[in-house]
């Protein structure tokens, strides 16, 4: 793995962190009846699903009305 410039990869990692943090904040603030499925499941999906996990949470995880 030598020869990889971590300065290049860092923005991706930071952005993914930001995305996950926004997701977790939104999840923590939401009422549990406005979330599809149990909250702890979404925590796992957001943390381990990389970019897709957060997208799935934001798009179909929340009931918008």
């Amino acid at each position: 793995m030598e020869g990889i410039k971590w300065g290049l990869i860092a923005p991706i990692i930071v952005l993914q962190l930001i995305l996950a943090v926004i997701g977790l904040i939104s999840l923590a603030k939401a009422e549990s009846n406005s979330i599809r499925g149990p909250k702890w499941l979404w925590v796992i999906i957001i943390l381990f699903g990389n970019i897709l996990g957060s997208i799935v949470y934001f798009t179909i995880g929340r009931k918008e009305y």
Partner: protein
Amino acid sequence: MKMTWLMYRKEMLEMVRSYKLLWIPVVFLLLGVMQPIVYFYLPNILAASGDLSAELVQNLPVPLPSEVMVNTLSQFSTIGLLVLVIAGMNIVSGERYSGTAALVLVRSVPSQYFIISKWLGQLTLLVISFTLGYSGAWYYTVQLMGPVHWQDGLAAGALYLLWFAFAQSLILLFSTLLRGSAAAVISLLIMAALSLSNSLVPSWFSWSPARLLSDAAAIFAGIDFSAVAALIVTTLGCLLCLAASTVLLRGQGIPDQP
């Protein structure tokens, strides 16, 4: 004018509260930054996967800056479009079923202001996200691959932006007609049909909005922009969608609250 501005501000406030104004730009930025970096490290990634001989990996051609830009744009038009459509699918129907529309429209807010402010709100979100993602991709492409001709880059980006605006007008129209998920599916099907038909028989569809996408790629290949008809049809299509949604919203009346 004043009413549209008021409604528009309400729209933006709602986007901040639902975190849309945060997560969609971040997703676009991530998509844009990831693409050039993946291309740059493609030899390393292939070598690490271990299936290819070292010689083959070493002789892998370095992609041109223009190729990387075209690929980033097509990434936006698949994943980015999906995200935008799903995020916007409840834009009108959500308000109708939650009763917000009834509350707003009963105060003599004409439906055209309602629709236009929604559309402007969506457009703002789109422009912010797309600009962020595209400039991220551009910056990394220049740093890693080499210079991109700035006129080509701007022209191609503008064409994609228009295609996205068309997609958003479609989703707005279907969202006034149907419930959220049905609206998303139909808009995505229409967009897919347009780009499929354009790639299968390009000569018949020189006016199709999907022509904007192939033209954006052609610009990077050094071919001059030609599809003026597609530009006009797409702009008219956006306006038509707006007008139709206004008429439909007016005709619907307000449903009884569940």
